[in-house]
């Protein structure tokens, strides 16, 4: 079962808030694409361009940019809260 949303998460390998965000997706059965900005230069440039900052995680939900593991904003963007 996929989800109606297009979700991209920009991460680094040692970032605990990235892991927490991915666990959050897991709990809510949200499928996502992960881009490791530690190794992928193009993804890094893309992340900086989208978020206008340097820090992970950055989450792109259908073009809405969320910086950090911000559970409330993620719930809103993913329509998880009624």
């Amino acid at each position, binding site marked *: 079962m996929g989800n109606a949303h297009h979700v991209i998460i920009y991460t680094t*390998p*040692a*970032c*605990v808030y990235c892991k927490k965000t991915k666990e959050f997706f897991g709990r809510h059965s949200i499928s996502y694409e992960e881009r490791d900005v*530690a190794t992928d230069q193009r993804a890094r440039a893309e992340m900086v361009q989208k978020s206008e900052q*340097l*820090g992970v995680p950055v989450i792109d939900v259908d073009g809405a940019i969320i910086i950090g593991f911000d*559970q409330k904003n993620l719930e809103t963007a993913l329509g998880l809260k009624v």
Partner: protein
Amino acid sequence: MYDLVIIGGGPGGVAAGVYAARKKMKTLLVTDSFGGQSLVSNDIQNWIGTKSITGLDLAKSLEEHLRAQPGIEIVEGELVTSVSKRDGGFAVATNAGRQIETRYLLVVSGSRRRKLGVPGEREFDGKGVVYCTTCDAPLFGGKTVVVAGGGNSALEGVLDLVTYASKIYLMVRSEVLRGDPLTQEKVRSHAQGPDAKVVILWNSLIQEVRGDKFVTGVVYRNAKTDETKELPLEGVFVEIGLIPNAEFVKDLVKINDYGHIIVDGKTQQTSCPGIWAAGDVTDVLYEQNNISVGDAIKATLNIYDHFKKS
């Protein structure tokens, strides 16, 4: 009304929760999140009984242990904003507008990162100013950065960055490095020779963070020579220590000059009857997960002694 409200979900808070539940006190634990400050650590090697564990796994095992206790109540995702005296106890308020009444209170709220407090810091937060080195070090590949601080977290920050950054200035306020000798040695090994990747700037303090869209440099002052210089760079990693999370009880309990709650080392009682504290929020000599656990248990057993008598 609860018998006990525990504020904090780090190792100390969880230890207190486990003991309080086993003593069958009506207990509520309030925390923003579980795991405490070690959450961001990638490898904890001194958590006794475990050779190596990540901060995230430690947080999970703590939470799981707490939730396995029958009777314990937990509020997660809220911060305590104020505590006031009530007849026979205290009223605790959270940032979500929750009001909790309790007879006894245990403060194990730990501490948070200290900020530089200089112009430009807030403006460039996330735009080159970094507070989670392990998270964001890889984003500074090939760049020049500064790490502010001289303790363990600053030294470990330098070691995290060595793999990525092209040049790392370690800006130390005094003339000595604090932190474990082993970590100091590793950092110093990168600071040898004319082409050293790491340059240690002693007696130096950042005065200003400069930039346009992102950080372009810092202005710093050498306290000994009284010289002020600008250093062109792209990353500012702030690792200058901690501030205790004690604001919400500052009018009720005695606090020392550093903002730590003063406790009696035998019982963990504060100056206010009915309030105990343990861990990094207190004037404890050593800020350690294992010590917070022991001190929080001491506090809980002492609370139980009072609970029994009443």
